[in-house]
């Protein structure tokens, strides 16, 4: 009965049998050299891939301890799935031999939890979660084990167009763009993570409602970035950065030329670009040779010079509020000739850039009330007056001694 060898079995069972059968017969039916070996891959790669294809909604996929090698991207499209390893040091998905796929693991499904494993050495992004609602990334490590390298994949942990996302207890190392990159999302908490040796440690972009706290961002090119990019359906606002340790982010920029982060000067602690309603408080920020905090408009970023963008895009950072932050030394060697010349011009050859540097570009069409850069910190400050070619740089903080109402906390209704 050829037609129904397994009449009452489901596909996974049949496929299991098929794996054995074809694996054992390898080469049957070849048409000479024009044929490839069509036997399925074996080992854990195939096992995990099959689990992702056949998991039921609500299912749990367990990744055993060990370093497991992968040649192709993994994809999950089933809602409600948990992928759980035995620890970010124990269960390692290694993509060193990857030949296909632009990610390590691509998730197009909601109510998703991934925890206690590591994804290493992917050719592109390590973990991309696209268009999902209710996402938990917990104690996951993404790493390029060779250290900073332009050839590394772009993003470590990368949720994009998500709603309700928690990233906690995770570690991101060596991304050639951002270690933890939250793009075009709503309602996000990023806490208790460590990001190091990336171009950008943690980046929040075009996202509405993000709380980023109790993280450590060290030895990146830039520590924590809050950006808005043009030409996207959603402009970001309302991000709170607090109780983070942002230190010594002086790694030379190894971002690919042309990428937005390639414009980040090495030695940047926190950068706010074109984003609105950002509250930065109770952080420890220090050891950055360019500046501990940079606040800029799109016009000062080097990734576009196109001013027509402004017609459909708000390029100005507005309603920015810093308070309670503690600053370590910094600003001794800004990583851009123009900035360094400005340092010398304003502060002398042995002077330092101050803690907080703002490009000073404001929308001339708007009344400033409510949109100010408010600084309550005990900090030094420079408005570089970029709109006028730095004709009148100013260190006067008096105009920035103001307050904005505190932003509300992000609340996630996530299980666990």
């Amino acid at each position, binding site marked *: 009965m050829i037609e129904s060898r397994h009449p009452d079995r489901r596909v996974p069972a049949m496929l299991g049998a098929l794996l054995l059968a074809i694996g054992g017969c390898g080469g049957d039916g070849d048409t000479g050299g024009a044929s*490839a070996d069509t036997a399925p891959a074996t080992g854990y790669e195939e096992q995990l891939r099959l689990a992702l294809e056949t998991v039921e909604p609500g299912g749990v996929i367990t990744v055993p301890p060990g370093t497991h090698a992968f040649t192709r991207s993994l*994809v999950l499209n089933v809602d409600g799935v948990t992928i759980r390893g035995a620890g970010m040091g124990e269960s390692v998905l290694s993509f060193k031999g990857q030949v296909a796929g632009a990610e390590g693991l691509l998730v197009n499904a909601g109510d998703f939890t991934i925890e206690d494993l590591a994804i290493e050495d992917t050719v592109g992004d390590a973990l991309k979660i696209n268009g999902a609602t209710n996402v938990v990334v917990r104690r996951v490590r993404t790493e390029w084990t060779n250290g900073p390298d332009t050839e590394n994949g772009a993003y470590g942990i990368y949720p994009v167009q998500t709603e309700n996302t928690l990233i906690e207890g995770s570690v991101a190392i060596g991304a050639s763009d951002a270690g933890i990159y939250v793009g075009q999302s709503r309602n996000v908490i990023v806490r208790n993570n460590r990001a190091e040796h990336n171009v950008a440690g943690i980046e929040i972009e075009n996202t509405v409602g993000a709380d980023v706290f109790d993280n450590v961002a060290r030895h990146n090119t830039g520590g924590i970035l809050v950006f808005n990019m043009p030409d996207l359906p959603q402009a970001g606002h309302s991000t709170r950065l607090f109780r983070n340790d942002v230190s010594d982010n002086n790694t030379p920029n190894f971002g690919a030329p042309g990428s937005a982060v390639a414009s980040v000067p090495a030695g940047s602690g926190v950068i706010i670009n074109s984003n609105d309603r950002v509250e930065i408080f109770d952080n420890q920020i220090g050891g950055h040779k360019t500046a501990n905090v940079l606040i800029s408009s799109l016009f000062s970023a080097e990734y576009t010079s196109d001013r027509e963008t402004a017609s459909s895009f708000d390029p100005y950072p507005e309603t920015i509020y810093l308070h309670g932050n503690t600053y370590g030394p910094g600003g001794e060697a800004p990583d851009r000739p123009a900035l360094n010349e400005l340092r010398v011009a304003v502060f002398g050859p042995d002077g330092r850039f101050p803690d907080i540097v703002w490009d000073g570009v404001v929308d001339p069409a708007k009344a400033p009330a409510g949109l100010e850069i408010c600084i309550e910190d005990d900090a030094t400050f420079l408005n570089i007056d970029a709109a006028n070619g730095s004709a009148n740089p100013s260190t006067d903080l008096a105009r920035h001694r103001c307050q904005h109402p505190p932003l509300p906390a992000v609340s996630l209704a996530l299980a666990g």
Partner: protein
Amino acid sequence: MGRPRQICARRVLALLTLALAAACQGPPEVRWHEPDAYPERLSDWGLLAHRQAGVVLGRGVVPYEIATPLFSDHALKLRTVYLPAEGRMTYRAQDAFELPVGSIVTKTFFYPIGADAGGKAMAVAAAGWSGDPADLTPSAYRLVETRLLVRQADGWHALPYVWDGDDAYLRLTGALLPMTLAIGGQPTALPYVVPARSECAGCHATDHASGRLSLIGLKARHVNRPYPGHADSQLATWAQRGLLAGLPDAAAWPAAADWQNPEATAAERARAYLDVNCGHCHSPTGPAATSGMHLDIHTTASRPLGICKPPIAAGRGSGGHRYGIVPGQPDASILVYRMETRDPATRMPETGRSVVHQAGVELVRDWIAQLPGECV
């Protein structure tokens, strides 16, 4: 069940299948399968058979062609549609046709078998084929995979089958097939990737928010052309045969350009090429909407097309360039860079391409070269 017994069973089955196939001269009968019992063998669907006499389509299985195809590592393709008894496709002017539950759409990927200088058999990149399934004999063509889209009550289900000998086998996880492909006479290493079932959604979930699979090729603009060897548009033929309902007057039929038609403009051909190769992801509802770059045929504004638009999250996919498309400067355009690279992290499309489609690249280059304006 022990492994040796499995091997023996399969060899016996293979022989039996050969014997049956030889005895069977007529077309296969299509058989329907429910989602909980998808067969491991493609032959159990009865959609097509690979015999010494070539490919024989199942009874009621209709081959079709589209004006500008997706590039898939130079694979040639046989596309078919099967409709249940009394079933019809419903015409849509812009979107994919509606097909009734019980419909099955297939796409079979294959290469001509040639030989290298030493006489070693090798798959060959060819520009096209006759369109006659009978020409696809086992000695002349190697079938690699057949992908099914099966219309169930809850939507389309994708099933990848990989050929091995005279049948193809369900591989939910896809496959990585190391091949050597002669491209322009040059043997080229090709890691041929059969997508996993979930990866089918990478292209066919054209509405990424819902995740539901859609047809891509069965749209009026793509199928409004004659099948090889025929005079009339497939739209007309299908309506006459009672396979297509709601067809308006011919004056209203849209037509995508044939990317190789020398009478069409570079813009028409390039936009048709980008529509088919990129537009299923790069659209306002597709998974690549995150990039803000939309290459579907309905996008006309310059910035969403990528003209003078900086990348969002391309990483090193930017290739050091500042904009998706720079008018007049193909070499400065990220789009061209990503079409020209084989690096899996940065190449486009992400799925289904390992080698470079030189002819496609040249077409897109020609189009960009003649675009007016500049990025300021």
